[in-house]
């Protein structure tokens, strides 16, 4: 009973933390005390938080390195937006339409994750990483050659040609125009929706981790051979984690895409995958709350560094390297903990340790 209590208390804290952040931001918003800059970032922050949580499921919980997570975000973004535009006449109620689109985006990304996962998850370590990178690039390349339009007859899909060969009837609309991506998206994403998506993601991921399936996934991470020896089907659970993670990334993709009037495939390349990986690593592997905080802080940080202009990215790079060194170098770690012992009262320190599991 003790352990159940521990896990659920940690969960409550995580939920509470997100809700409190939401309420505070809403209060600030309604009182007009929030800068346009921050307000404009609220939805992308939500999308990145969901991305970070979902990648944490693959990297932290399953223990497999993925360098192509943005690819799933891309699948979700494009299918979600296509769905949203096609459903415009069928579901006029925007919140419902958004919800349906997010579900469609998540579903198709989940399918993509499953299709990719089946062959790929047999590989291990660095090889798996490079293959996920390759898939991310392939998704990007293919989306750049994809043309989708909608008219009364329904969806038209074309590959490798151009928008005119979609042969849309009068009044039809080109949605995905190859490399030009989708433009003219009506912005439907709101901070509230982003918050709701984070809550759903947390619900799914935290409950999954704390269940029979989640245990099996973590067992694979800790020791694959032992997991097999107690009868845990390796591929099944790897795939379960990978597909769930892909689906959540897809949902984040739809939310993200519906916040901008344009979306192009090149956005979801290697650099975005790495950005999200950095959130996960800095937030702590397997630490969901850490992912949330890291994604938020690291999305705001570059904006705060704007006044440094051209030096901004150099500073970011140096900070990144220093953090990695500080958290991984044994000497430095010892030094820091000594420092902490001296500077902080002991009760505070204990509290900090306890919160690391989330």
């Amino acid at each position, binding site marked *: 009973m003790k352990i159940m209590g521990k896990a659920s208390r940690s969960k409550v804290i995580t939920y509470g933390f997100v809700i409190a952040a939401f309420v505070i931001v809403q209060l600030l918003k309604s009182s007009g005390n929030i800068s346009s800059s921050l307000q404009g970032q609220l939805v992308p922050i939500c999308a990145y938080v969901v991305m970070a949580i979902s990648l944490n499921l693959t990297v932290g919980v399953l223990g497999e390195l993925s360098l192509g997570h943005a690819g799933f975000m891309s699948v979700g973004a494009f299918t979600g937006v296509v769905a949203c535009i096609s459903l415009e006449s069928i579901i006029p109620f925007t919140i419902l339409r958004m919800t349906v689109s997010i579900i469609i985006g998540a579903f198709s990304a989940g399918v993509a994750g499953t299709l990719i996962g089946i062959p790929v998850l047999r590989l291990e370590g660095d090889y798996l990483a490079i293959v996920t990178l390759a898939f991310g690039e392939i998704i990007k390349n293919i989306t750049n050659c994809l043309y989708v339009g909608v008219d009364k007859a329904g969806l038209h899909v074309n590959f490798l040609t151009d928008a005119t060969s979609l042969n849309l009837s009068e009044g039809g609309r080109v949605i995905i125009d190859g490399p030009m991506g989708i433009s003219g998206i009506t912005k439907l994403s709101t901070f509230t929706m982003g918050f709701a998506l984070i809550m759903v993601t947390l619900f799914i991921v935290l409950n999954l981790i704390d269940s029979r399936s989640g245990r099996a996934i973590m067992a694979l991470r800790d020791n694959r051979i032992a997991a097999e020896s107690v009868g845990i089907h390796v591929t099944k659970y790897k795939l379960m984690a990978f597909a769930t993670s892909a689906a959540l990334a897809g949902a984040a993709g739809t939310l993200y895409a519906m916040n901008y009037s344009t979306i192009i495939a090149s956005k979801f390349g290697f650099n975005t995958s790495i950005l999200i990986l950095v959130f996960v690593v800095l937030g702590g592997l397997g630490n969901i709350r850490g992912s949330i905080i890291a994604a938020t802080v690291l999305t705001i940080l570059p904006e705060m560094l704007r006044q440094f202009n051209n030096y901004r990215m150099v500073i970011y*790079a140096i900070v990144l390297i220093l953090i990695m060194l500080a958290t991984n170098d044994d000497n430095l770690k010892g030094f820091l903990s000594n420092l902490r012992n001296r500077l902080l009262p002991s009760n505070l320190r204990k509290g900090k340790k306890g919160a690391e599991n989330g």
Partner: protein
Amino acid sequence: MTFLSFLISGLSLGSVYAIIALGYTMVYGIAKMLNFAHGDVIMVGAYVCFFATTRWDLPPTVGVLLAMVVCTVLGVLIERLAYKPLRSASSLAVIITAIGVSYFLQNAAQLLWTSNPKVFTSVVGNSLIKLFDGRLTISVIAIITITACIVIMAALTWFTGKTKMGKAMRACSEDKGAAQLMGIDVNFTISVTFAIGSALAAIAGVLLCSAYPTLMPTTGAMPGIKAFTAAVFGGIGSIPGAMIGGLLLGIIEIFGKGYISTQLSDAIVFAVLIITLLVKPAGLLGKQTTEKV
């Protein structure tokens, strides 16, 4: 004839990938880390050579040598400052650090040299060789690139096979603990590996920019990723593997463009990589290691 000219372009592009991949593979073999900053060391090498030859009017050979010296120092510095403290850390931490170094080099280059592209003057000239009554034209750069790749590969094989230091590297990549018991200074050996890999990166940078003469702070990024793919393709850690992987990748890229579709060439390259890894999970020449139970 088109086939032949595609093949030559493929070999030439592939040779550049191969030289970069050799740097990746050597470092991976000994330090077991994916050095994502390798591509950016290439860029630095190319810039140094550019400034040496065009701004300071030094002869091309001196330019290349200077680039090699600067890259070697840079490579060793990066290793000492950023990677060495993480020797016992998780591979993920090392990857993130390597990416941080990569960001740093790119952005520092932009601050130092601006993002305006510069046109690299080929260090070997631009002359052409015409065969079959001019139906097949081969540039001297292509020939030099391919030759350089073969020479470097041969030199590395000789170095790792015959010299004391080279053997020590192999020993370290197999078993660091046992290597220490032989009296091999593992840290020094790793530094030497980084030095060689970075010197190769300088050569690769010069050759890359001689054949494709636009030079920007981001010049090294994509060839870096492609070469990394090539190294994995051939079996990361294996020197002949990097060479074969690089050449094949170059040829596949060119043939994919030439015979299938220019729009899908990247997808084709990566798809071939994936299929290869599914059939041979450790790459073409890689050795698969199974965990001992």
